């Protein structure tokens, strides 16, 4: 069975594509559209990886990421942050708060899927 991925983004148009492509790639995908829902979904069943948009409504991506890292039960959850904020300082902030990777929009979907595979592969090893 494929790894499980939680997509947390409030843009339905990107969620549609990500969900489709990740399923194509063999992952199990759930989607949520705000910070609280993301944390609830993780509590319900911790995914292997969260694709986390920084600017989601409610608790923003930074806060969600920090909460994931603060919970020892979610130690194995990888976090890839997606963001329209492209500055180097924002990238550094995401990584400092515990994200495994930080992807700036727009991105190549093929590359994103590759990155997700690589991160999950590294986690397994």
């Amino acid at each position, binding site marked *: 069975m494929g790894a499980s991925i939680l997509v947390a983004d409030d843009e339905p148009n990107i969620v*549609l*594509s990500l969900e489709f492509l990740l399923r194509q790639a063999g992952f199990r995908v759930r989607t949520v559209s705000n910070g609280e829902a993301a944390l609830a979904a993780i509590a319900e069943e911790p995914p292997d990886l969260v694709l986390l948009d920084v600017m989601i409504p409610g608790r923003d991506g930074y806060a969600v990421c920090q909460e994931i890292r603060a919970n020892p039960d979610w130690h194995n959850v990888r976090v890839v942050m997606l963001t329209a904020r492209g*500055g180097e*300082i924002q990238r550094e902030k995401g990584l400092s708060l515990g994200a495994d990777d930080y992807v700036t929009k727009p991105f*190549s979907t093929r590359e994103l899927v590759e990155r997700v595979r690589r991160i999950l592969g590294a986690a397994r090893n």
Partner: protein
Amino acid sequence: MADTRTEPRAVTAIVVPLLVGFAALAALEFAAVALVFGDVAWRPLAAGGVALLTLIAAVSWLFIRCLVRPLDRLALDLAIVARENPSYALAIGTRHWLGRLVESIEAMRTRLVSAELRGAQALSEAQQRATEQKRWLEAILLDLTEGIIVCNLQHQVLLYNQAAAEILGGTQSFGLGRTIFPSLTREPVLHALERQIQRLETGWAGQGTRFMCGAAEAQRLVGMRLGVVRDAAGRPNGYVLSFTEVGEEDAALATRDDLLDSATEGLRAPIANLRAAAETLSQNPNLTAAEQSAFHEVVLSESIALSQRLDTLARGYRELGGGRWMMAEIYSSDLIGSLKRRLIGSPVQVTATGLPCWLYGDSLSLLVLLDFLLRQLHVAVRVEAFDMALHRSDKRIYLDVIWNGLPIAAGELESWLDRPLTGGLGPLTGRIVLRRHGSDAWSQAAGPDTARLRIPLASAQAEPARERPLRPARPEFYDFDLLRRPAPAGRFADYSLKELTYVAFDLETTGLMPTGGDEVVSIAAVRIVNGRILTTETFERLVNPGRSISEASVRFHGITNAMVRDKPPFALVLPAFHRFAADAVLVAHNAAFDTSFLYRAADESISFDQPIVDTLLLSAYLYPDEADHSLDAIAARFGLDVVDRHSALSDSLLTAAVLLRLLDQCERRGIVRLDQLLASTDMMGQLRARQLGFERHAAGSSS
């Protein structure tokens, strides 16, 4: 005027009665003789008496006419010339016995007249020039769209122009002799003035401090530049403010920020959506009709959204003028020093640690933000003592607030950043201040039980340091008796190397010969406590060496004879340094040089009995393969960089930073106590001393 006429007549009043009295007496005498004797034989005598009387009368008449009256006349005329009219012609005539006195006085009068004439001409020309310059100045001031105000240090307006009055909202509450507050917001002006005076004192004369300031009772925002005016002795005695209203510029800037956001962040999301949908379509030819239609719908709607955003963006940019924030170089110690002063009276305590450096930003808004964040942190994490440290990376400088405890939750920090800040800046939030600096803030663990709040900032683009020639190689003095003399005392031996308190110090001197008559011209030091360089606990004094400083030394350390003329001699500075260094291990680079000056000046009342750590010897011991153990070379190896090399403290700070790195190395090699360390360096030292002896010997025999 009446007295001027009576005074000279006193001459006549005295001389004439005297002469008349004398003549009368002579006449009476002859008359008396003639009457008493009545004899014919005495008649010739009486006739002689009458003749004499007549002669005296004649002589007196001549005397009065040719001497006394002309003197009277002259006195009167001179009084007129001197007090009323220099052109007044002397009316003394030619019949007098005053001879060349009159000619000389006449010559003097003529010269006086022409001198007065020339003076009057010069005065009138000068007045004309002054009037003309005043007209020029008025025209220039009137023509300037920039507001100009000149103030004294009591903040009273000495000069202002029309633009200044307009920007400040008219002259109702503003004008000559009146204070500039509250027409201008007090805090930013005082802060800028303090910073500029501080800079002047440290010898760095910049082009004035630039800052933003509220005007017209905070109704407007002005971009301001402040320059200090100094008196003939170089002391600040006023300041010049030049400013423009940036209300519109500010609004344009905010608009441009928004536009830039929509250009970068705003466009990223729709393009991402579009690209993902397009890639899905192209990479998956076997989609069902329903799936295809869904992705086509995304492509269509996102393309329309993109075109609309692009139109908004283009329109916005056309409407936008230029404009930029007024940023300046800030010395981190100034920033933290000001912060400490702002926090006086609050329970929050700030300690500056690490090496200071130059930042680029708007100091007041950063100050207000840090003040706000520290107070919020104090409440949130229940900590009173915070460290502030600066860390350099390749690209930027991190300003870290460090405390014992846990990091702040991202959500809480983000909510603080959305609150308006107070402090004379208008309705700014922390987020706007950070955005203005192209920055952000986050909190993370900084080690076991310590957390930090990190704000990345730009480093100053150009080092505003004064030019300083490269340090010439200081001859290495190896006097190991000096090193051995202070035996490691028991009080120091009980602590681990990192727990000890150190004082890193450095001397500048008139020359390089401690035993050849050279003297100290400055001494600087910094304390290191628990492995932290306390940049706010420093010691820095200029010293009068009692002899002239050689030109080579002036070129090297920049301290001139004039700078030390009114400074105390080393003997008076030493007790203060002794107190500063009490209970601390002394640290110096090439310590034999510095300590030889210290020990020479010390006496019974002041002795430096604490151990000494020489970073040069320590480095030579730890890195025997390296050839160069100069401070600069070691610093370069550790990647340490003190940007503020114009400060006399810089070498002490660098020595302190080098020491901490070397102590790390010692610990790794199992040297954890001071006696171990001293034993090692001493051993090394003797080795090098022998080498040096060989070299001297070799040099001596070859010459």
